[in-house]
């Protein structure tokens, strides 16, 4: 019973860690380059969830002052502000990776890493 309670208490953190590892697993095991990019994004989401969970306060309100508020309990604003940055960075990296995949498909005709390695091995003696 105790264990279950603790799992429920820490579900955000556990979810973050699980997403991080699922993403890493996707990157490591899948040979499809698009799936690798998806894996990177899952990893990123895991880290962001973990970071945001640190700022959570139970019963807290969003950190915005409105008229007539007296001694409110706000959630921690810093993780939200930091992860805003993190999300934008993750978007930029994703777009760059996608553009590379487009070029790889145009030049090699495949987006599978194994086939790519085979093609590159055949073409190695370039000069």
């Amino acid at each position, binding site marked *: 019973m105790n264990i279950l309670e*603790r799992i429920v*208490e*820490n579900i955000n*953190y*556990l979810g973050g*860690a*699980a997403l*991080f*590892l699922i993403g*890493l*697993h996707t990157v*490591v*095991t899948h040979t499809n380059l698009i799936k690798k990019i998806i894996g990177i994004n899952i990893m990123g989401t895991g880290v962001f969830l973990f970071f945001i*969970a*640190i*700022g*959570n*306060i*139970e019963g807290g309100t*969003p*950190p*915005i*002052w*409105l008229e007539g508020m007296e001694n409110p*309990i*706000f959630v*921690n*604003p*810093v993780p*939200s*502000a*930091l992860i*805003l*940055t993190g999300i*934008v*960075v993750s*978007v*930029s*990296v994703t*777009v*760059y990776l996608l*553009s*590379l995949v*487009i*070029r790889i498909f*145009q*030049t090699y005709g495949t987006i599978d890493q194994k086939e790519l390695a085979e093609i590159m091995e055949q073409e190695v003696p370039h000069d």
Partner: protein
Amino acid sequence: MKKILIRIVFIILFFILAGGIFTMPTSPDISAPSYNDTVRHYIDNAVEETGATNVVAAVVADYRAFDTLGETVVLFTAIVAVGSVLRVPLKKDEVEIHHE
């Protein structure tokens, strides 16, 4: 076989991480160590020091504005990087037309 092995490794990693998380200071209330003087200062003085009632905006655009500058630079970098990869079509005869 290899796949199962990798999966087992990841499951073990998850249990290590989960075990670590159970001993971390994860309680979601204001006694958490991350809810420290800095955060209290932001909440109490943001309106006075920055004039913004949205504390997150005050942190993003004032207290930690240099981070935000850094990430607008990341966006700019992304445009330049994507532009440098997807510049002109690859076929030789199309290259002439699309030269800027």
